[in-house]
């Protein structure tokens, strides 16, 4: 028997056949449901497998991430990478296995159900249909009466036909079942077998991979053993360090060339009403007593910036133990050490520090004299003190070197401006020059309206005065004050008698004998001028002043030119050469032989340009001398101020225009030529040079004018003082400067506004704060007793002014920046 059911039985459609058929159908149904279950389970197995593989790949990625932690440790890094790589390889195998599972089991069994079992079902349908029809025909046949022979014959024909059809269909159905039952045996087994093959491949690959890695694993295991040993050793060694604790001396004194440097924690008493004691890290550095917080803030605070004027005193009668006091002529600081030993060390160190500070200054002076050039850097000062070098880099933005060393680097400044003796220690701040002690004495005798003398080494220097000094310097100033000095004038020397010195200085600064007067145009007859000047000069019709800032900005550092002093100090440029107006660039320089002594020719449109030949000075390093600060940022290098007709060229207007161009050398020349610093410009709302300086946006022309005694409260035609204008323009640093110099903030302009109401209207928080602080200070000053209030005020104003001078960007609000950019356009 080939089929599952006997053919005879089928064709007879016997009850036995029907019983067998039912059994077969049930078997097929059962098979189908079991296979479907397998498909479902296998599907979820593959899915969760994929999830697992996905997670494993994330795991590997996180391991890669970990390996970056060891990027400094190539040994660990390479092993780790190899392990991760193997893991990923294994992961890949796993992915293939899952893929195979879905390829074999899912695909084969699904097709078995879809094609074979569904085929059986189709035959079943046909069978059932024909079976019903057959039954109907049999029924009709039985009903057909004898009396109708025609009908009988007809139905018998039909019956035969249907029976045969039923027989065929039944056989088809039975056969399909039989085929299915036979096919299921190998289909299922072969499916499973191919899946098992996939598994075998998977394990083989894994085993091959592991076999390859075996040597690596072995060496790695050895290395791990070594590392473990190292850790153990380190642990052992570190356990021994505990012994250090008991022997630890909490005092560190570094005996070095430049004297003892001490550092450590002390408690300091605050100067506010609470007298809170705070623990701070103190150290002695560069003649200063400095402290900082343990954490949080990077910067340190200078408690005493010149130890030479300090003394140390033990405090024995207080409640607290181990207290001592650092006294300077003006301040006292209460400090407390942790132990008696620390206390002794600090007192000794401070006393030695004070002694060393005094000595060191002298020895550096000596070095300087021996070297006798201006290339002395602070390296002298810094070598041998690793501590301070580090500090310097830590606090790049802070003044860490004495001002005089920096000021002496300004061209010409390393020799006295008047007698040329080396290593000047004094300065005249309103002239912007350095002086030896003898000459400074003569300067003092001239009176402060001629010269304000300060010590380079003993005085502190406000940032704005330093700026003024840097803009000028001996070389620049002498080119103005000694421009026409005949060779036969007796110049004072280092050792000369006082009378010579006095005569010279008076002639130079009081009588201004050697200042070259402004070139005359259109005033004298052409013939008289022809002898001394090129005829082309007669065609100059306009003049202007170039905007300038001689300090390097941080952005200039890369291409800063090291210009020789002589080049820097060429003073006035005369422009001529008509007929060359076509050369649009107008930047070529040409030396005119007839005016070569102090001028160069520029092929420009007959404009006399002041201050165009002043180049940047070769000043390196000191941050507080360089500035990207100033509110004049964004200005082009070669900008000029508005041109004026040549007939108006006179010292007063020159000073005014130079102030507007924040060009201090030209301002200096204008003052030397007798320019009136209190002159008011009738063509510009009756403003004074100080007003013009405010509009320049820069602090230095303001500071320079104030040093030279301008009226700080001068009102223009609208009743506005410089303070009004600085407020209105949002120049915080200038406002700070004016308040410091006691500008009157209660003056009203013609609209009845005081600076404060302008600042409020402009919503400039910093200027509002400064002005109100100023008022508060005045109020506190009126009451006689309060001294504590002033302290706070001064500190706050100092913070403000320091910030305004060194980091004005921090004071800029977005709105104000807009204003600025508008203006500079």
């Amino acid at each position, binding site marked *: 028997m080939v089929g599952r059911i006997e053919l005879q039985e089928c064709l007879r459609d016997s009850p036995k056949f029907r019983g067998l058929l039912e059994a077969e159908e049930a078997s097929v149904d059962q098979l189908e449901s079991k296979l479907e279950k397998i498909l479902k389970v296998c599907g979820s197995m593959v899915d969760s497998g994929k999830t697992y593989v996905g997670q494993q790949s994330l795991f590997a990625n996180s391991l890669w991430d970990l390996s970056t932690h060891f990027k400094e440790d190539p040994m660990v890094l390479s092993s780790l990478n190899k392990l991760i790589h193997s893991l990923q390889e294994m992961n890949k195998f796993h992915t293939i296995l899952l893929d195979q599972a879905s390829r074999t089991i899912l695909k084969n069994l699904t097709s078995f159900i879809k094609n074979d079992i569904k085929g059986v079902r189709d035959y079943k349908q046909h069978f059932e249909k024909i079976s019903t029809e057959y039954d109907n025909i049999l029924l009709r046949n039985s009903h057909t009466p004898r009396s109708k022979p025609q009908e009988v014959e007809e139905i018998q024909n039909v019956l035969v036909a249907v029976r045969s059809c039923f027989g065929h269909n039944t056989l088809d159905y039975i056969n399909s079942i039989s085929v299915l039952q036979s096919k299921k045996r190998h289909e299922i087994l072969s499916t499973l077998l191919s899946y098992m093959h996939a598994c075998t491949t998977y394990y083989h690959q894994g085993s091959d991979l592991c076999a390859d890695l075996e040597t690596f694993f072995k060496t790695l295991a050895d290395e791990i053993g070594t590392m473990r040993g190292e850790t153990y050793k380190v642990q052992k060694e570190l356990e021994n360090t505990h012994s250090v604790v008991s022997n630890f001396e909490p005092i560190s004194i570094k005996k070095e060339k430049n004297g003892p440097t001490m550092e450590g924690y002390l408690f300091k008493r605050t100067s506010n*009403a609470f007298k809170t004691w705070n623990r701070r890290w103190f150290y002695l550095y560069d003649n200063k007593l400095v402290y900082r917080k343990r954490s949080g803030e990077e910067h340190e605070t200078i408690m005493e910036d010149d130890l030479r004027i300090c003394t140390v005193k033990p405090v024995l*009668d207080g409640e607290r133990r181990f207290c001592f006091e650092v006294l300077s002529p003006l301040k006292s600081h209460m400090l407390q050490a942790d132990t008696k030993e620390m206390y002794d060390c600090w007192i000794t160190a401070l006393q030695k520090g004070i002694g060393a500070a005094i000595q060191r200054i002298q020895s550096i002076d000596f070095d300087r004299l021996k070297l006798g050039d201006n290339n002395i850097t602070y390296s002298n000062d810094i070598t041998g003190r690793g501590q301070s070098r580090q500090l310097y880099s830590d606090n790049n933005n802070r003044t860490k070197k004495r001002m005089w060393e920096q000021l002496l680097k300004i061209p010409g400044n390393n020799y006295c401006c008047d007698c040329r003796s080396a290593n000047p220690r004094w300065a005249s701040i309103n002239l912007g020059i350095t002086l030896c002690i003898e000459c400074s004495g003569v300067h003092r005798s001239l009176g402060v309206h001629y010269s304000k003398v300060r010590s380079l080494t003993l005085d502190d220097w406000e940032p704005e005065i330093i700026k003024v000094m840097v803009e000028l310097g001996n070389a620049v100033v002498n080119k103005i004050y000694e421009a026409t000095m005949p060779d036969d004038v007796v110049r004072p020397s280092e050792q000369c008698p006082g009378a010579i010195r006095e005569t010279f200085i008076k002639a130079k600064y009081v009588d201004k004998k050697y200042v070259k007067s402004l070139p005359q145009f259109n005033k004298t007859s052409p013939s008289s001028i022809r002898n001394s000047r090129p005829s082309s000069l007669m065609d100059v019709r306009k003049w202007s002043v170039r905007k300038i800032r001689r300090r390097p900005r941080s952005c200039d550092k890369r291409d800063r030119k090291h210009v020789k002093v002589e080049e820097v100090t060429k003073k006035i440029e005369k422009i001529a050469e008509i007929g060359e107006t076509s050369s649009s660039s107008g930047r070529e320089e040409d030396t005119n032989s007839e005016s070569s002594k102090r001028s160069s020719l520029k092929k420009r449109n007959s404009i006399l340009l002041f201050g165009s030949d002043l180049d940047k000075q070769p000043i390196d390093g000191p941050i507080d001398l360089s500035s990207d600060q100033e509110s004049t940022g964004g200005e082009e290098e070669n900008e000029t101020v508005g041109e004026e007709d040549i007939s108006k060229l006179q010292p007063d207007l020159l000073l005014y225009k130079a102030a507007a161009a924040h060009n201090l050398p030209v301002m200096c020349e204008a003052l030397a030529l007798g320019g009136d610093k209190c002159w008011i410009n009738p063509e510009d709302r009756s403003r004074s040079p100080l007003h013009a300086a405010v509009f320049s946006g820069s602090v230095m022309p303001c500071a320079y004018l104030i040093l030279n*005694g301008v009226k700080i409260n001068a009102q223009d035609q609208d009743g506005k003082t410089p303070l009004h204008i600085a407020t209105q323009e949002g120049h915080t640093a200038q406002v700070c400067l004016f308040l*410091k110099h006691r500008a009157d903030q209660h003056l009203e302009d013609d609209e009845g506004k005081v600076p404060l109401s302008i600042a409020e209207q402009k919503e*400039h928080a910093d*200027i509002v704060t400064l002005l109100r602080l100023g008022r508060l200070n005045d109020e506190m000053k009126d009451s006689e007793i309060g001294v504590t209030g002033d302290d706070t005020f001064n500190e706050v104003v100092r913070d403000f002014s320091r910030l305004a001078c060194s980091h004005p960007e921090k004071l800029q609000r977005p709105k104000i920046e807009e204003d600025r950019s508008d203006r500079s356009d």
Partner: protein
Amino acid sequence: MSSKDDEYDYLFKVVLIGDSGVGKSNLLSRFTRNEFNLESKSTIGVEFATRSIQVDGKTIKAQIWDTAGQERYRAITAAYYRGAVGALLVYDIAKHLTYENVERWLRELRDHADQNIVIMLVGNKSDLRHLRAVLTEEAKAFAERNGLSFIETSALDSTNVDMAFQNILTEIYRIVSQKQIRDPPEGDVIRPQNVEPIDVKPTMNSDGVRKQCCQ
């Protein structure tokens, strides 16, 4: 408030801080000038006012710094807290967000102010009963947890305004006067008691306001 402020035994700097619009400036004007302005504008930078009160027969002059709550009106923050011995941290009882931000202000105080600064939490606008968004008990519990004193005020109807300032100044006075007993000032026998060192800045002091002579 035309009291002569010329003589005093103690001068205490107190700062008013808190979100914009909680009523700091009105608290100040109520305390120093007995004024209230319903339509006051945002403070720009800092405003200052002083008033003296009596504690234990001593005259205490309060120098009050009213700071801008709005970020864009604030200048250098550290300056506000320098030398301050008291802070009134104000929120608006009708605006819960201003209360939530109290933590932020406390952090700012910790970063910039003296560690012993006396802080008082002030729930202002207590007249707005029907709009209350911060429960008194909640704020009180918060103040206790953080070691602050607490008071609810209304600058509009003057409730507790004087009390708030009086309390904080008294608290500061107690601390300072006790401290003086504990550690004698300067430990310097030559100097008389209770005298602050006079801090005369050197001529070169960079920013001191200096009188110019001979000009």
